[in-house]
């Protein structure tokens, strides 16, 4: 929904005639997802006393920030950004995170797993290398420290099966737990954000977005994303059936295969466990084509021509028992 010129972009076969004679008042899919998310952001600003936006610097939370601008400008975004850092991030991500928060004039709160390990509020299990699990106590600690009653996150329902059953407003008890059998019904656009002391809400404005929608939105809004999403040269190690970045956090063992590859990351997590996909995609259009190809690998020769390394990687992953 940019200017009135953008109205009526969405026309069916019948609508084509309409457009010659009259305007069509119908939103296309990105406009629809956008207005739904803006509505949710404003509900959070109105119904919670101390909300925060979880901002990692990843592609989904980049969309969240643009939606926050759309919801609240010309005012300041009325909530701080919170990042729970594992300490194992890609350096490009941290640089981007700090710069973006500054550009938007927002307060960025960073809490790290390292601090929590030092204080003893998080404890590393023997043999545990990934720090994804350790983010949970750090997040809960930050919620308690700042008395946040609501955290807006960029999770999407298309990510996996359990997420497909999440609500937009996901109620958490005083231990931060989600009970899938005891969720509040969500009807029309009426969200119930009421809490008792100590309880908490997680809100997911991108619930209805797919990976494709996110990239289409990044393209449409001309949003900057960290460079590691695009094709670059990187030394990678073969681990667990995928290529992961070679990093001093986890030195290469003598029996491991190492290669210099042209890769990009599809999702960003911990640097030691984020799989890199071999890909020549160097801009949004390339990525959108790559995702489309990954979805339609068997759609016929037209699509087969565009099958990329990312699609190949998916197959390899699936084939790994």
């Amino acid at each position, binding site marked *: 929904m940019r*200017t009135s010129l953008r109205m009526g972009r969405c026309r069916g076969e019948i*609508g084509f005639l309409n457009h010659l004679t009259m305007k069509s008042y119908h939103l296309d899919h990105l406009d629809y997802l956008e207005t739904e998310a803006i509505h949710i952001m404003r509900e959070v600003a109105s119904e919670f006393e101390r909300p925060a936006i979880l901002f990692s610097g990843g592609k989904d939370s980049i969309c969240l920030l643009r939606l926050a601008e759309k919801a609240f400008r010309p005012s300041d975004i009325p909530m701080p950004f919170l990042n729970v850092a594992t300490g194992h991030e890609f350096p490009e991500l941290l640089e981007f995170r700090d710069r973006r928060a500054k550009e938007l004039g927002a307060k960025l709160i960073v809490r790290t797993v390292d601090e929590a390990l030092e204080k003893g509020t998080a404890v590393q299990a023997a043999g545990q290398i990934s720090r994804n699990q350790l983010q949970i106590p750090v997040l809960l600690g930050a919620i308690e420290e700042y008395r946040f009653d609501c955290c807006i996150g960029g999770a999407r329902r298309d990510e996996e099966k359990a997420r497909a059953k999440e609500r937009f407003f996901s109620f958490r008890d005083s231990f931060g737990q989600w009970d899938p059998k005891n969720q509040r*019904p969500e*009807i029309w656009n009426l969200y119930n954000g009421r809490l008792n002391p100590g309880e908490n809400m997680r809100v997911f404005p991108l619930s209805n977005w797919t990976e494709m929608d996110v990239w289409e939105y990044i393209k449409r809004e001309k949003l900057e994303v960290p460079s590691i999403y695009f094709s670059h040269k990187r030394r990678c190690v073969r681990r667990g059936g995928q290529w992961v970045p070679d990093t001093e956090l986890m030195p290469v063992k003598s029996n491991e295969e190492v290669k210099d590859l042209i890769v990009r990351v599809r999702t960003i997590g911990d640097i030691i466990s984020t799989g890199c996909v071999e890909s020549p995609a160097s801009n949004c259009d390339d990525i959108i084509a790559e995702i489309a190809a990954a979805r339609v690998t068997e759609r016929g020769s037209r699509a087969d021509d565009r099958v990329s390394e990312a699609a190949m990687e998916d197959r390899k992953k699936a084939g790994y028992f």
Partner: protein
Amino acid sequence: MSSLYSHPVDLLRFNTCGSVDDGKSTLIGRLLYDSKSLMEDQIEALERSADITGGGQINLANLTDGLRAEREQGITIDVAYRYFATPHRKFIIADTPGHVQYTRNMVTGASSANLSIILIDARQGVIEQSRRHAIIASLLRIPHLVVAINKMDLVDWSEERFLEIKTQFEEFLPRLDIKDVKFIPVSALNGDNIVTASAHTPWYPGPTLLGHLETVHIASDSNLSNFRFPVQWVNRPNNPTDQTLHDFRGLSGQIAGGIVKIGQKVTVLPSGFSSTVKQIWTLDGPLEEAFSPQSVTLVLDHDLDISRGDVIVDAEDLPGASSDLHAKICWMNPRPLTTGKQYLLKHTTQTVKAAVTAIEHKINISTLEKENGITELAMNDIGEIRLKTAKPLIYDGYATNRLTGSFILIEEGTNVTVAAGMLLPPTEIARPEYRDFAI
């Protein structure tokens, strides 16, 4: 737009109703599988599980039944959302279970749907559950209905059987508020008429299920007639350095109905102040006009005292206003509704105290008959009630506008959502006290 589409695409939201045995999960699995919406790893996972448990055949239902409890019990316990796209449209599926006890899930899944798919087992024909689903779809005013008559392979693709079921269903249609109904003979298991036309149904001239979903006309589904703008958030930058921002007083919200234009005369309710629209502000630049369901920020000609919960409407087209409400509700809590109890009522952007003053009757959702002399509504019951609110609601009947005509009830203390409500048409129109008075 992306290079994937040569033209803009829109979004269709639909829900599927049916019980485990109707093959609902298989139908969704088939739609995803045949429209090539599955990733390779999902397909391979399916094939693997088929080898172990399915006797070699892929169990498409495994795609949708996500939680462990569901797999163990072979049921769908809650609303699950699925996403897929074709070159023509993007789709959001709300997959809702068909058990008697899960009416509330269907209401949840269907409340924002453009279209509802009802599955009927061709061997069984129209059963009580099919009628119940159609009645709920009608109560929720879902604009489009598809009756997918499934397992046609098990009745030898009999046109006679198809027409017989169609007639059974059409017999009670006149009592429902559904304008657009489509009947499609399918076999979800084998993929007939789901994505590709079946060779077994030369007698059926219509589209496949996906063909219909891709082309059904939804552009006129939202209310574009009556301008309604519930104020969600007052946008006041209060910027001390930038003078233009210092004086900016915007009213942010999502347009719940109609179209708004620059220069349009509007009334703010419940106060009744009049003004005109000076600016329609968005981050992407000002608009000349905006329509439902766009999210915008309005700037009015006068600096009025407006806050969240107020409603800005077309000055020539006022909604209803009353604190005595008449509504149909679906009760969603294990503790039954009884008269006299107080709840919080959330309607558009405001939450007010409300007391249930009377239960008029319960609606038998298998026959649409009214059951009088009812003292309580149990979980999954639908009934008509009277409510008294602490302050008047500015509203429309649900039949006119799904957004300004709906509400939820919240129980104080537990904070759980206990009911979904649909308001009957107002008997009193908002009567602003200060209609011609502007500051």
